[in-house]
């Protein structure tokens, strides 16, 4: 088995799965019916992407684990998602700040992965990229609307951006997994995505009349560990809800 590729596929699969779950928590609680529809559909896109990544991860691992076994029967320390996606939803501005930073990174990493030397990776990336380009534009629209809105919405959007910002650093961390795969042309070096990400986020924040947090993400990020299986306490609660049914009633179908 290619251990590095397996680990990388879990990062993509787990990050899309956990963010999908977080967004789905808004169902029935959205600030407006139109926003609730949109968030639920973004969650659905991400769930579909998670299925493709986890299915491929299971094939690469070669131990007959399918997407469901990987999603429902691993504990928190075996999850490899970035910490940013497990952050609580907070208020709607918090959710959209997290979404913008993730979507923009997601777009640039997928765009690079469409050139992957591994065609299976390139195919999933090309499929996902079209959906994520739409997500990233939508997130920017909402952040601009809230940032350049009322004094109250502006202040809360700025606070949301300041709060989530330190969690974005992990998205640009290279380690033995990414460096090995980058050498083989399978994934890009994550640090190389930072300039494009920063430029785009800066443009959106400018338009939203928000101040870009003054923290250099290129150096040792403040919060990291998710991609190595060291998570915040938030992930345990997510898995408790997501996995309950399959844990309590193994193999249940409906």
């Amino acid at each position, binding site marked *: 088995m290619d251990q590095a590729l397996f680990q990388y596929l879990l990062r993509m699969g787990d990050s899309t799965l956990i963010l999908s779950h977080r967004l789905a928590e808004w169902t029935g609680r959205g600030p407006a019916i*139109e*926003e609730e*529809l*949109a968030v*639920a*559909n*973004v969650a*659905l*896109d*991400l*769930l*579909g*992407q998670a*299925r*493709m990544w986890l299915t491929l991860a299971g094939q690469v691992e070669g131990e007959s684990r399918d997407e469901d076994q990987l999603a429902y029967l691993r504990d928190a320390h075996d999850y490899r998602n970035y910490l940013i996606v497990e952050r609580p939803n907070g208020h709607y501005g918090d959710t959209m700040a997290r979404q913008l930073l993730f979507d*923009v990174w997601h*777009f640039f990493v997928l*765009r690079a992965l469409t050139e992957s030397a591994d*065609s299976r990776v*390139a*195919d*999933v990336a*090309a*499929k*996902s*990229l*079209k*959906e994520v*380009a*739409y997500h*990233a*534009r*939508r997130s*920017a*629209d909402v952040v*601009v609307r809230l940032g350049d809105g009322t004094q109250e919405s502006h202040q809360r959007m700025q606070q949301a951006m300041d709060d989530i910002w330190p969690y974005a650093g992990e998205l640009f961390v290279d380690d033995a997994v990414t460096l090995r795969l980058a050498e083989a042309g399978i994934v890009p070096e994550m640090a190389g995505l930072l300039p494009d990400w920063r430029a*785009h986020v800066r*443009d*959106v924040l400018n*338009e939203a009349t928000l101040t870009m947090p003054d923290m250099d993400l290129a150096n040792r990020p403040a919060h990291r560990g998710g991609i190595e299986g060291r998570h915040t306490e938030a992930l345990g609660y997510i898995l408790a809800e997501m996995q309950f049914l399959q844990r309590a009633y193994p193999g249940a179908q409906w």
Partner: protein
Amino acid sequence: MSTLQTLTPHRIMEWLEHVPDPEIPVISVVDLGIIRDVVWDGSTCTVTITPTYSGCPAMDQITTDVVAALQARGITDVRVETRLSPAWTTDWLSDKGRQALKGFGIAPPAEQAIDVSAITRRDSTLQVPCPLCGSRKTRLVSHFGSTPCKALYRCTACGEPFDYFKAH
């Protein structure tokens, strides 16, 4: 068996034109552009489909419907395979499909496939004509509608809300 295999893929495609999309039944799976290939492999008829959106819950139903439709025509051994690449695009919607959408009250894609080279914000110059009254005075209400493939618009001329089949 030999008589079955003389059925050309073209003929089978014609049959599949009667298999409706489960979510938008006025359009067939062929007009939707998701049937990528029909080939005979011995006595097995293999139909290759590609998903619209990766999370689209209709794909399982479409697989079931394709198998059922061909079995009803006497092809007992049908296999449905999924292919991701090249990724589905609304550029593959047939003209007949676009007209059917419009007749059903869903505005068909008003531009070419979504641009994935960059995510620069653009001033929205996109005009989506109202499928009900034809006015171009419409505005986006929500980036998504009742399914991932649609957005929600409202016509400011006739006042009606309507679904827009997003360019993808």
